[in-house]
């Protein structure tokens, strides 16, 4: 028991280390940044896919519809991990400057490239899910809205951008927000490829816990990683993810309840 308390104190000591906590918070910033970029990009791509799948129903444009459908089904029925691995090996990446890498806090430009590839994979995957969500929104807009817009002399583009899409997006805000929770959770998949976001950073700190938890003596006695280190550090990560996602999910629930009323 005495030993356990001592281990536990050592483990909490890791979190009190300003270097460690700063590193973990930087990981959190990346988790949020990556999720934000992915959501913005995939809502854009998803909207295009959804419009094509829903409205390219006549003439030669039907080929585009086929392509959009195939894309959506392909990505919805294969795991994100596969696309991360594919992009990691095959996706071309622009060469980033050393200054840009350092600005993001990386020592090498290779890490930025990997991050870029991972975001590409993440966006490709999430776009398919977003497309289906947006399609649901488009289908919820009443037919009369199209007819009314055409009757007022609106063209197809104007009808879509001014009348249909705004209503569609308003209808799917709760679903988009809950997809945000999934995206924040899914960003942890990157930990398998590159250590930038919270999950990867936490894992890295645990693998080095012996040099932070007070058991490290000198370079001959490397110290030991205690099970309490695992509990405290992963516990911290659990807490952070939970705080963000639970807040979002409460928000979504309240919004849904208010809309039903």
């Amino acid at each position, binding site marked *: 028991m005495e030993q356990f308390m001592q281990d536990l104190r050592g483990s909490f000591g890791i979190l009190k280390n300003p270097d460690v906590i700063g590193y973990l918070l930087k990981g959190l910033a990346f988790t949020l940044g990556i999720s934000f970029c992915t959501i913005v990009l995939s809502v854009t791509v998803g909207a295009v896919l959804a419009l094509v799948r829903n409205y390219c129903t006549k003439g030669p444009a039907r080929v585009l519809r086929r392509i959009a459908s195939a894309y959506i089904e392909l990505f919805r029925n294969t*795991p*994100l991990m*596969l696309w991360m691995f594919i992009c990691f*090996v095959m996706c071309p990446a622009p060469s980033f400057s050393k200054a840009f890498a350092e600005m993001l806090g990386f020592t090498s430009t290779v890490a930025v490239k990997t991050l870029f590839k991972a975001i590409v994979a993440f966006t490709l995957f999430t776009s398919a899910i977003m497309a289906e969500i947006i399609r649901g929104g488009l289908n919820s807009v009443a037919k009369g809205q199209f007819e009314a817009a055409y009757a007022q002399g609106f063209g197809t583009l104007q009808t879509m951008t001014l009348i249909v899409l705004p209503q569609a997006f308003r209808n799917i805000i709760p679903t988009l927000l809950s997809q945000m929770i999934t995206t924040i959770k899914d960003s*942890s998949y990157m930990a398998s490829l590159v250590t930038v976001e919270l999950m990867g950073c936490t894992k890295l700190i*645990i693998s080095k816990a012996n040099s932070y938890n007070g058991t490290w003596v000198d370079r001959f006695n490397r110290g030991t990683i205690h099970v309490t280190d695992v509990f405290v550090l992963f516990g911290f990560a659990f807490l952070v993810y939970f705080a963000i996602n*639970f807040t979002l*999910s409460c928000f979504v629930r309240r919004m849904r309840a208010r809309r039903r009323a």
Partner: protein
Amino acid sequence: METVWSAKAWATVWQYRATFLNGLLNTLQSAVVGLLIAMAIGFALGLMATGSVKGLRMFARAYVEFFQNTPLILQVCFLYYALAYSGVKITVVTVGFISLGLYHGAYVAEVVRAGIQSIPLGQFDAARAQGFEYTDTMRYIILPQTAKIILPPMINQVVALIKNTSCLYIIGGADLIATTYNFVTGESTGGAYGPAYLVGGVLFFCVCYPLSMIAGRWERRLKERDAVKPDKADAKEATA
């Protein structure tokens, strides 16, 4: 990508076909065992969430919120590391079963809860008036009626579960996706990127796509049936 056209790369993949098959079997095994655990947890929690005991309701809520709001990868890693550092000998495969079961149990619980709550309260009252106990009410009256509502989202959960087996890569799992990646980066087999990813992806797609299609069709049919206006339905009955 050029390797897709390389006969040599295809030959390598063909030579190691047993590796891919083994990966697929591992994925399916994790998915089936994970699903069984998830079903058991999900039905228990779903019943707790709709029951009358406040403590159990709160427990079910807390469980669902915790598991739905934290990443599966973190749960997998935590379970694996916590057991490993406390000296418990456990295989990667077992950790996979447990963590997939716990995580998807939360989602199944929500599906079951929504299903039970979609049944009109009158059904519960009627069952009680007929002298049914709680277990009999659930078994003979309520759960059979929820089946058709529950099934499409349940199949979607199965697809999600199969996809999530790829999480196990982080602790060294040998599922289909990890196998494919290890194959393309392996020392003796490396380089056959195109064919290997194609084979891995196609195998995965062939498992998931039929399931998603069944779920999608079923859901559409339910929606269409619900969309029939009540007065129209009445009219149909009158003419029948």
